[in-house]
């Protein structure tokens, strides 16, 4: 039978399209995995008029054995486990467990760090990884999908670029990212070609499949971490290198052993070539521009490895400008960043492999807001969203791998992630970060006005704040800018800078009307003194004349002092405050969060001040060690007896610290009322941790390793205030269109964006960017999809654009970003352009 060549060609083309569609479908399912597993269908009981927390009690208990977690949740002994699990075996068990569900968080990123010293080491050996081309070729050599799916058991997503795939910058640069990802897609043949060329340039020759130099095989030392999945990654890389003709030394090392070699050692000594690195992010970082400087230039760190970096001058300059935020507009920043990323990929001092996924197990009938980067332990909203889905109230047991790691005090106490998780349940901050975007929302403020100098590039996303640009911001003369420890008074800008002073930003914050009507957990009323005292303490701790002086506080305080330009109270009812600073963040919401003053109960702080002044306790670990006293703990241990003694004395004396200043900010009889309340509190609870959050600290059991917090019934907010953040509203995409497009006709594609099977509101879509790639993976045309209503978006491909794409297998990629979540969603549609009219 004779088959027409045209028909055969068409059949091959259709076959190719089907294969591509299948491949892209795989890719899409991989990308949408987090969305599907993070968004199970649910039925939640109504909250009614309940206030504060949605559960009555939370018990934190130590559980370090990951293997037990699923069984403990199944048996009802545990409802939530707050440590991310990255072990695939444990994950499979969790997945198969009845009554157990889980959340997903991003965090650790795995990469390959190269030793760029050379081109020859001190002993004369050549170093192939001195050549940027060889490092770059590793991007093609590595099959990241294999690494994610096989080596990490599906608990990872491929990562190509020096920006985390779950963070806003990735979504903002989605088209650049996709272009580069396609450029650096797995292509071992290309990698082999480049490595071959470069090795020959270095004077090596391939003999019987082995690279030789000066008569000896070229030996590559792979420094492999043995404490996690990187052991398998290291073996995979070693196998790939052997496949390329290198002799490989596999150096299996623990973290400590490895750090001596790769961080502390001199790279010129050539003790290693490749290290299986990993980096952790504990918050959603909305501004990743520093990554270029940190990972690719000598400015990153002072260690010898970083000093061996020789980035392209253009990359170095861009990284330095971005680090200094030396750009006038947001568009300029994006342009610089995009170019920097492209150059970083060419440099490839690091080859990024995957962004690891952490599984956070919980009982199926429990829900809570999980931070996209920091998981449950780093989620600021867990106290406001933790609930049983089928009932209100009840007790929840949360397992932590460690707790009460260090003493708790509000000045320089424990900052361990699991301790701070508990503390978050006890406190109520002025702003709370969105767990899915990292942007802040107001909790105790009504509005904020951010004023910046006109050369400061700042973007605003939410409408609870405004941003204005002015030519010059002059700090008023009555703003407080410093503290006179000897005179016990604030110093104004007028005194310190008689000629005046300017600032780059001004933040004016109006707190909610009843801000100063709220009460601390011990029943005493909050006052302005609770806001002023922490400022004074911060200045005192940096002042050598003060009894509170702490050498460890000086350096960070100096950083603060460098950008701080003063603050003042504009009004007390409603409370309005103005803060001046030279420090900027790209997001206006972040600027407000960094500036807005918070409160801390002055009466518990006063006891600490007394104890530290008398050399009995110290707020910070460093000072405690220097003074050979205990690090102050307000919740347990030997500190309590000392603080109790000071409570009695303070109550008897009517002690108000810095009385000539704080006296202006306390109510009549407040001092007596505070100490009376605290005395009763301590008698009842046996600790001094007084706060104002949705839970209060009920009891602490240090040896038994458990902490109990209970619902604070007088909490002012409705219990459902933050429930909209209990789930990440990751858009689900469905991209549809013709599989075969005629070169003579225009074509339309339809994008459906939904969440929970309902159309995704168009105004919540930040961008729906489409990218058309030709058969060689080159980006030919791009643009924004147009909303047509009901969650549908239209992508039109004109005849001219079709002509540019050319006949053959092409693809359409769509990147959708939502204002609700930093994680972008992708969809792909493969189609073929055929010459002539389309067959009916």
């Amino acid at each position, binding site marked *: 039978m004779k088959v027409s060549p045209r028909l055969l060609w068409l059949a091959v083309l259709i076959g190719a399209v089907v294969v591509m569609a299948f491949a892209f479908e795989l890719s899409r399912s991989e990308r949408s995995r987090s969305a599907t597993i993070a968004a199970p269908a649910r039925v939640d009981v109504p909250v009614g008029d309940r206030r504060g927390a949605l559960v009555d009690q939370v018990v934190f208990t130590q559980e370090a054995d990951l293997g037990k977690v699923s069984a403990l949740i199944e048996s009802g002994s545990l409802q939530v486990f707050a440590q991310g699990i990255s072990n695939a075996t444990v994950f499979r068990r969790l997945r198969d467990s009845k009554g157990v569900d889980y959340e997903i968080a991003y965090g650790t990123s795995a990469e390959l760090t190269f030793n760029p010293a050379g081109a020859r080491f001190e002993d004369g050996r050549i170093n192939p990884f001195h050549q940027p081309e060889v490092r770059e070729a590793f991007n093609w050599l590595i099959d990241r999908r294999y690494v994610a799916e096989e080596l990490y058991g599906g608990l990872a997503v491929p990562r190509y670029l020096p920006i985390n795939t779950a963070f806003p910058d990735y979504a903002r640069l989605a088209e650049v990212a996709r272009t580069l990802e396609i450029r650096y897609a797995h292509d071992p043949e290309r990698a082999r070609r480049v490595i071959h060329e470069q090795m020959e340039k270095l004077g090596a020759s391939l003999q019987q499949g082995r690279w030789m130099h000066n008569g000896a095989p070229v030996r590559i030392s792979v420094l492999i971490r043995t404490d996690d999945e990187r052991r398998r990654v290291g073996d995979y890389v070693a196998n790939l290198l052997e496949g390329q003709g290198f002799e490989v030394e596999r150096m299996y090392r623990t973290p400590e052993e490895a750090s001596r070699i790769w961080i502390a050692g001199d790279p010129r000594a050539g003790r290693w070539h490749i290290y299986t690195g990993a980096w952790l992010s504990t918050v959603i970082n909305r501004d990743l521009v520093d990554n270029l400087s940190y990972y690719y230039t000598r400015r990153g760190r002072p260690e010898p490895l970083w000093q061996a970096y020789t980035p392209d001058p253009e990359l170095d300059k861009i990284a330095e400008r971005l680090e200094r935020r030396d750009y006038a507009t947001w568009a300029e920043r994006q342009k610089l960043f995009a170019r920097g990323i492209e150059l970083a990929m060419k440099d490839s001092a690091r080859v990024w492999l995957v962004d690891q996924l952490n599984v956070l197990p919980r009982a199926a009938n429990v829900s809570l807001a999980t931070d996209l980067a920091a998981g449950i332990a780093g989620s600021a909203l867990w106290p406001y969203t933790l609930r049983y889905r089928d009932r209100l109230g009840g007790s929840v047991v949360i397992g932590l791998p460690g707790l009460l790691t260090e003493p708790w005090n509000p000045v320089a106490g424990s900052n361990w992630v699991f301790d701070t998780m508990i503390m978050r349940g006890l406190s109520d901050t002025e702003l709370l970060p969105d767990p899915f975007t990292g942007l802040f929302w107001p909790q105790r403020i009504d509005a904020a006005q951010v004023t910046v100098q006109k050369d400061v590039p700042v973007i605003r996303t939410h409408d609870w704040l405004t941003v204005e640009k002015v030519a010059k911001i002059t700090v008023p003369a009555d703003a407080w800018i410093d503290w006179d420890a000897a005179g016990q008074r604030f110093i104004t800008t007028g005194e310190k800078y008689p000629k005046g002073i300017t600032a780059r930003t001004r933040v004016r914050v109006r707190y909610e009307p009843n801000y100063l009507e709220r009460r601390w957990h011990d029943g005493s009323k909050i006052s302005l003194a609770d806001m002023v005292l922490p400022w004074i303490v911060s200045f005192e701790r940096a002042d050598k004349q003060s009894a509170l002086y702490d050498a460890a506080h000086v350096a*960070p305080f100096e950083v603060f002092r460098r950008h701080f330009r003063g603050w003042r109270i504009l009004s007390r009812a409603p409370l309005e405050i103005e803060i001046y600073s030279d420090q900027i963040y790209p997001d206006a919401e972040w600027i407000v969060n960094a500036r807005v003053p918070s409160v801390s109960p002055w009466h518990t702080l006063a006891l600490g001040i007394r104890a530290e002044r008398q050399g009995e306790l110290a707020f910070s670990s460093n000072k405690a060690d220097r003074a050979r006293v205990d690090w102050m703990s307000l919740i347990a241990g030997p500190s309590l007896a000392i603080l109790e003694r000071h409570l009695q004395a303070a109550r008897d004396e009517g002690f108000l610290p810095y009385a000539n200043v704080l006296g202006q900010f306390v109510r009549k009889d407040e001092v007596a009322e505070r100490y009376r309340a605290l005395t009763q509190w301590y008698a009842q609870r046996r600790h001094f941790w007084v706060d104002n959050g949705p839970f209060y600290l009920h009891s602490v059991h240090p040896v038994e390793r458990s902490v109990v917090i209970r619902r604070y019934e007088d909490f002012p907010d409705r219990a459902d205030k933050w429930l909209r953040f209990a789930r990440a509203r990751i858009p689900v995409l469905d991209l549809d269109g013709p599989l075969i497009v005629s070169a003579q006709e225009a074509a339309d594609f339809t994008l459906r964006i939904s969440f929970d099977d309902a159309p995704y509101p168009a105004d919540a879509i930040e961008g729906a960017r489409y990218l058309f790639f030709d058969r060689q993976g080159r980006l030919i045309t791009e643009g924004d999809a147009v909303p047509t209503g009901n969650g549908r978006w239209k992508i039109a491909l004109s005849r001219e654009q079709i002509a540019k794409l050319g006949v053959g297998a092409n693809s359409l990629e769509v990147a959708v970003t939502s204002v609700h979540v930093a994680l972008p969603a992708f969809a792909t549609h493969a189609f073929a352009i055929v010459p002539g009219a389309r067959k009916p």
Partner: protein
Amino acid sequence: MITDSPQPSPSTSRASGFLRDLRRVGLFTVLRLFGLFVTVLVGVYLTIVIANMGGKVDELRIVQIRSTIAEGVRADRAFSDLPSDQRTALVEGRVKMEIERLRLDQPFIERSFDYLYQAMRLNLGRAEHMHSDAGSRQVYDIIVERLPATLLLFGTANLLIFFSSLFIALRLSRRYGSALDRIVIALAPSSAAPGWFYGIFLILIFAFIAPVLPPGGMVEAPPPEGRLAYAASVLKHMILPVAAMFISSIFIAIYSWRTFFLIHSSEDYVEMARAKGLPSGAIERRYILRPALPPIVTSFALMLIGLWSGAIILERVFNWPGLGTLLFIAIGQRDMPVILASVVIFAYLLALTVFLLDVIYAVLDPRVKLEGGNR
């Protein structure tokens, strides 16, 4: 020095004999204590040197300090807009402060002797990184806080094992070759597996398959508020770990004691007692147990001081807040004062026990005399 050969009484006057004995006892005591002290001294110093890899650990610790601080500064958004040189200066300042705090700027050899000096004086001092659960940095507080939990669990288990095995072994020694005896012999190899190994199975069976007992911890969370309820909860939490230790040790212990008693019960003087028709209880007490007492006491004393170190893996399997876990953390964090305190206290306890055993031997066993005594 001690010999086990009985000596005849001296023929000199009682007074001079008493003085001479006193002098000998004094000399023995001094020499013995000195020898033990030197042993402890050498053991503790070796611990210091080995735990620090002869000073190499300093290098590791500095790298670790630098990395931790650099990452901490980088992660802190308050420093995000700092120029690189200022950020580096900030990191370096903090690194310097931490190095000074840990005295890593001093040569290891100098610190090692200071560690030794402080340890031998039992000046436990302050931990470098760790805290007690309640928040104290005093090594004494850190250890004392965990001691009751360790003593309770391991004391209960070990006493149970010790006395059960003695009692059963004594009975079995009289029923040599019986079915029970053969069962015990057959099960003796089961002690090759450590307690934590059985613990895993016990947790699986009794905490998850048939959930009647808690899988770990010392008390339920939150701890019951009443004392009785608290005690009941602790007891409930002790069942599985005690059972795990018991299963792991009981058969080999019975087997050992049984063999020991069998040897003693086949002595001529025991056979003579039997021939005389003495009751079996009297034979056990006077002719078997009495001469067997020194090794039993030794075993008991060593068991008691063995409680000091707890059991790292078992404690971790059962999430028990004991000294074993503490030592594990201390080693992981290279907290020398805590490691040293644990070692030096154990060394002193061991030395003291050995010394006391010498004395107790002399009391219990009339055959034991100081060298130089009359034959």
